[in-house]
């Protein structure tokens, strides 16, 4: 058996979209054991520091995307500024810097 951290169904299936459109509640994860007999999930071989950094990046990105106090357009704009600052400040593999960019961004939105 192969294990992976996350999996989901594709948006290309009508039934999946129907389920997503069934309620406004945000997505949640549920833990379960799934056996893949023919299709093997993608395995990533990353050094621990990259893995940790990417996990933080994912978490912060989702916090931006799921911040319903802002319109979806505003969230996408914030997402863009976040990724631009990661590029400009060369924040790759630096978790502290990543968190600082995120906090500065939130501060700028709270106190424009």
């Amino acid at each position: 058996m192969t294990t992976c951290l996350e999996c989901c169904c594709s948006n290309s299936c009508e039934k999946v979209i129907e389920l997503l459109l069934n309620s406004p509640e945000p997505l949640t994860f549920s833990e379960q054991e799934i056996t893949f007999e023919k299709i093997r999930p993608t395995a990533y071989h990353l050094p621990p520091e990259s893995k940790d950094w990417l996990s933080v990046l994912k978490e912060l990105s989702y916090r931006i995307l799921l911040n319903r106090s802002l319109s979806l357009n505003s969230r996408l704009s914030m997402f863009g500024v976040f990724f631009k600052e990661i590029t400009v400040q060369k924040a790759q593999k630096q978790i502290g810097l990543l968190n600082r960019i995120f906090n500065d961004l939130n501060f700028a939105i709270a106190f424009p």
Partner: protein
Amino acid sequence: MILEIGTKWLNEFSPSSKALQTIVPKVLYNLESVNDATVLAKWKDSLYERFGEFDCWFEKILQNHLIFKDFPINYRFGTYEDYFFGIFSGYFFAKFVAICYMADKTEKSDLADVFSLLYRLIGHTNFEFNAYVLLKQAGLNSLDKIKTLML
């Protein structure tokens, strides 16, 4: 700019996407009578009036797409800023097509159909990179410039 880019992408992507081909005639037909983006804004307002939870639904579709694509590990290209342009392209195109397709429709099932067809292109091809290239070719190479595509 929205009309120009959206129509160009419809024509650019539909020849290689059977899924898109099923909705493009209807979308282009609706767009035939549109000369300026204010009509799009009206269609958008009408869609949001009919489906008050549209932003919540679209947020879930976007997050599901990111999980499906193993964000932020897989399919990344260029810098993180470039990568965002790809993600934004999917957001823009899906919203543009959904708004145009739904201009004269009222059923939630129609919305589910159009999103599932769109994500056969966006989720299962190299759409985000290709659209990123099209954005750059159109001179939309900064966050300020792509704000013009915010519907």
